[in-house]
């Protein structure tokens, strides 16, 4: 049960139809799965009935960033060794988690970020319009955080204890995807990127963020930088 000290944090808002399929391979691999039901109204919580996981419930919908932070706080209080951020919609691959954890286990990094742009075959899986948008996000992120990443706003990340103790998310919504690199830079954490492939299914494309949401994220970031 070596993997039990690795906490997989999954924020879920109305993911009833897919959450079980996302969680099952993680349980099979022996990880501690922490699902944060972010005020779902479609029976996401019930869809998880009977599974040997940790369930947290937000009484009101707060956003993916806030839900992730709640799951990470649970991991902090329960003595986790590693924390992995994982999307609920099944776009990430449980089999890639060991590769994400490797740099942490070797003590080379505090934070490991998945990247869809390190291998050509991963890159090709990203829809062209999304690729263009992400390019812009990468540039913005590099400009505002001075972190030369190859990808931005991927929900697949891994943290050592030092990493997840230090990074505390304040962005409630999806802007946390930009907040994390900024925090890594501010806190001078050691980070690496690891190639990760993402499955863009019809479901994830429909359920996931619209590209237009980038405008919201940008406004969130600018506004909050002013009011922090």
């Amino acid at each position, binding site marked *: 049960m070596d993997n*039990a000290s690795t906490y997989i944090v999954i924020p879920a808002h109305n993911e009833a139809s897919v959450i079980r399929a996302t969680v099952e391979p993680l349980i099979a691999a022996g990880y*501690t799965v922490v699902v*944060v039901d972010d005020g779902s109204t479609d029976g996401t919580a019930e869809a998880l009935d*009977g*599974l*040997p*996981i*940790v*369930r*947290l*419930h*937000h*009484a*009101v919908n*707060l956003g993916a960033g*806030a839900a992730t*932070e*709640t799951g990470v*706080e*649970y991991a902090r*209080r329960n003595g986790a060794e590693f924390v992995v951020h994982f999307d609920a919609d099944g776009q990430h691959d449980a089999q890639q988690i060991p590769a994400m954890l490797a740099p942490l286990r070797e003590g080379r990094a505090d934070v490991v970020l998945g990247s869809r742009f390190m291998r050509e075959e991963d890159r090709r899986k990203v829809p062209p319009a999304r690729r263009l948008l992400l390019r812009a996000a990468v540039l913005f992120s590099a400009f505002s955080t001075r972190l030369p990443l190859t990808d931005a706003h991927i929900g697949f990340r891994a943290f050592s204890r030092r990493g997840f103790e230090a990074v505390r998310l*304040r962005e*409630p919504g999806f802007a946390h995807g930009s907040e994390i690199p900024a925090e890594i830079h501010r806190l001078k954490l050691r980070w690496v990127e690891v190639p990760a492939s993402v499955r863009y299914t019809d479901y994830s494309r429909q359920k996931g963020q619209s590209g237009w949401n980038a405008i919201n994220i940008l406004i969130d970031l600018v*506004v*909050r930088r002013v*009011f922090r």
Partner: protein
Amino acid sequence: MIAFQPLLILVLLALLGTYMLRFRSLLRNRLIVLVFCAASVFFVLDPELTNTIAHKVGISRGADLIFYLALPGLLFMILLLYAKVIEQEQKIIRLTREVALQTAVDARRPRT
């Protein structure tokens, strides 16, 4: 005295009364509001005064001076309110998070 003056003063006093009675704010804030209201009543009673001040700073009409001062003032108030909303939002997040953590269901081990 024109009919508009008592009307405006009545509105100002009603606002002041509501503020003082309904909200328990800091003494400092109450004093600021009181001073502003007193000044407003003063300017309503003697409109020529605003004209005189306006001329001194190179604005032709007193009403324009009030307008120019009011605009940044209102914007500043909106900013304050927005900061308050964000602060409130962080409080709701902390509260919801704490409730979630306290009511966590750990199904990994058999419950006793």
